């Protein structure tokens, strides 16, 4: 019974996709995607308490780490899909989409969720690779959904850069398999078997393989040097899709790096993966900081902030102690929720004001207080103010960084984080405060924030805040996931 449950996070969204394929997007089916995301969340919570499970003759394995990632997918997925019907209706009313577009959107989002769930439940590096490549293919159409010049351009860049990154990862996968075949136990590509026999892997081949895998999956995670697709794709995709891509897809790719690092640390010592990750982390933070300071587009601002947070995750992974890894995982969840709230909110701002320029949105607090409040608190959560969980996780990453001898890197990272926080606060306050712009169109009453969207936004912020005060039952899960990633009980 519980074994069957491991299939639910993958199968349920697939069923949802089939429903949309057969019935289309109608009043009766508009909540199917939210229901399936909720189902993924429930299954993930049950799996988290059930211990390690395998299914499909060892093709899928859900351990504590996978269960945690499934919870992230379910939670952010629920937030994004709950806001989707209102988003799509508004797009249809504005004539920017048709019911057919809405059907395709919902179908692809379900397939996207299924692919991500498969990626984190895969027991095997090969299956993980296939699932991550599948997410690229599915989301390419979501990014290009509006078919405008900029949307098509963003989709092209996205597919080319991510496919190239993922091709690097494929070469890395094949080389790791080659190294694995030459060990006494021939473990294949199974994560657990690879980790168990990692000490016998040939270091020369493994070093090349690990570098390719980290850089390749790093492209998909939005880490420099292959990050150029991210601001374009995130600013052009429909708001709920941006929320999913930034909130979960990046972390799912980062999850692959975390798993690879376990093997690298045993086969090559901790130095190699650490140096690689620190270089990528600092490069990402520098890129994010330099482009955020003078940013004029609020969706791109959020996208660059995602690059920043991926950089922080890489820094935490480089530190690699159990505290660091637990903080990294908590950061994944906190960032996913905060960024999900912000992207959904930003999509609403775009729909009601018709502009994505920071300078043209003024006085949002006066015109749409609830939405402005959610955005304001979302940004506060994002820059790591207490009580939100990002504060706790950033503190954990910084402490672990100093404790594991990465003093200079951590100090530099903190400085960049401060610069970024200042930039985010300045830009957001320009949008929220001030007097509303006069001129044509200003007098039109702004439609109220739909009830369910408001609930989703407030719920996301609330969970983020509660997690920052007390991780509660998640503590045990984080602890066992960190054990898997550090190899120390």
């Amino acid at each position, binding site marked *: 019974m519980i074994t069957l449950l491991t299939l639910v996070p993958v199968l349920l969204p697939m069923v949802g996709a089939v429903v949309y394929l057969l019935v289309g997007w109608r009043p009766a089916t508009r909540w199917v995607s939210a229901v399936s995301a909720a189902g993924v969340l429930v299954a993930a919570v049950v799996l988290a308490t059930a211990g390690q499970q395998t299914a499909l003759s060892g*093709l899928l394995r859900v351990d504590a780490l996978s269960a945690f990632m499934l919870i992230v997918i379910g939670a952010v997925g629920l937030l994004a899909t709950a806001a989707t019907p209102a988003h799509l209706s508004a797009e249809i009313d504005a004539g920017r989409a048709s019911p057919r577009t809405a059907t395709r959107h919902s179908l692809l989002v379900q397939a996207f969720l299924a692919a991500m769930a498969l990626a984190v439940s895969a027991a*095997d590096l*090969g*299956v993980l*690779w*296939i699932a991550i*490549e*599948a997410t*690229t*293919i599915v989301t*390419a*159409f979501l990014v*290009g959904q509006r*078919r*405008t*010049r*900029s949307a*098509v*351009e*963003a*989709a*092209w*860049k996205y*597919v*080319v850069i991510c*496919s*190239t990154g993922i*091709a690097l990862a*494929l*070469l890395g*996968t*094949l*080389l790791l*398999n*080659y*190294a694995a*075949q*030459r060990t006494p136990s021939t473990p*294949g*590509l199974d994560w657990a078997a690879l980790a168990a026999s990692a000490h016998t892997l*040939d270091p*020369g*081949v493994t*070093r*090349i393989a690990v570098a390719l895998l980290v850089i390749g999956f790093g492209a998909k995670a939005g880490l420099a040097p292959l990050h150029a697709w991210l*601001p*374009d794709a995130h*600013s*052009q995709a429909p708001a709920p899709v941006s929320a999913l891509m930034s909130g979960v897809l990046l972390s799912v790719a980062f999850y692959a790096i975390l798993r690879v690092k376990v093997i690298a640390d045993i086969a090559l010592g901790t130095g190699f993966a650490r140096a690689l990750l620190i270089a990528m982390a600092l490069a990402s933070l520098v890129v994010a900081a330099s*482009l955020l300071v003078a*940013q004029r587009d609020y969706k*791109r601002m959020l996208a660059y902030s995602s690059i920043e947070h991926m950089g922080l995750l890489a820094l935490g992974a480089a530190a690699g102690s159990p505290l660091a890894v637990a903080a990294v995982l908590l950061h994944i969840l906190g960032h996913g929720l905060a960024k999900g709230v912000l992207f959904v909110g930003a999509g609403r701002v775009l729909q009601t004001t018709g502009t994505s320029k920071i300078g043209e949105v003024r006085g949002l607090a006066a015109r749409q207080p609830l939405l402005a409040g959610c955005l304001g608190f979302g940004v506060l959560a994002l820059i790591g103010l207490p009580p939100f969980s990002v504060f706790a996780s950033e503190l954990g990453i910084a402490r672990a960084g100093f404790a594991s001898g990465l003093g200079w890197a951590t100090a530099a990272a903190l400085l960049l984080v401060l610069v970024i926080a200042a930039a985010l606060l300045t830009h957001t306050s320009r949008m929220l405060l001030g007097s509303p712009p006069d001129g044509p169109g200003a007098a039109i009453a702004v439609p109220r924030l739909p009830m369910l969207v408001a609930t989703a936004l407030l719920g996301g912020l609330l969970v983020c805040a509660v997690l920052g005060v007390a991780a509660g039952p998640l503590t045990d899960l984080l602890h066992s996931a960190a054990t898997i990633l550090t190899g120390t009980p």
Partner: protein
Amino acid sequence: MSDTTYVQVLDLACGGLLLTAVLVLWRRELSVIVRVFAAQGVAVAVLVAVLATHEGSAELGGVAVGILVLRAGALPWLLRRALAGAGPARRETRPLVNVAASLLAAALLTLLAYAVSQPLVALAPSPATHAIPVGVTVFLIGFFVLVTRRRALSQLVGFLLMDNGITTVGFLTTAGVGLVVELGVSLDVLLAVLVLRILTTRMRETFGGTDLDELRELHD
């Protein structure tokens, strides 16, 4: 097949791979580039067929046929279709790096590939693994094409060259990655190409051409 013929045919196939990769860099006519790419597909298929005969594996033979159909048939066909829709703009007009410099870069990339691949060959020396640097070279040249060409179609060919290189390395390391993974990988590549193909069509609809210089909407 005797050992000498095996090694000779293997090396011949690798030579074909390398030659076609360099030809892609050299020629600018897009229709010629697609034809060269198809020839490279044949070279990859021959390589896998030789390995199959050497190991006496019927499964690998089947994979070789599959590769022939996909890489020398389906993918070039898709590219030709994209080309037919492209109208008069059929030349890679202004690559970021000119041909002479590209060929020089190819030579440097080959050296780099041989330097990087040393541990790969040293792990299990055999005629097959000695050819790994060729696969890595094709991969690097593909990457080079991808970053220096401006036509969407040339970039697509660059991506596919990378993929041919990866496939070659995969089979030369005698990596039986498992049939599920193998199938998944081929399917994903095919789908990625289909997606890019659809996007080139949309780009042509919205931009009027597929010169990536037109892509200037999004920047900071």
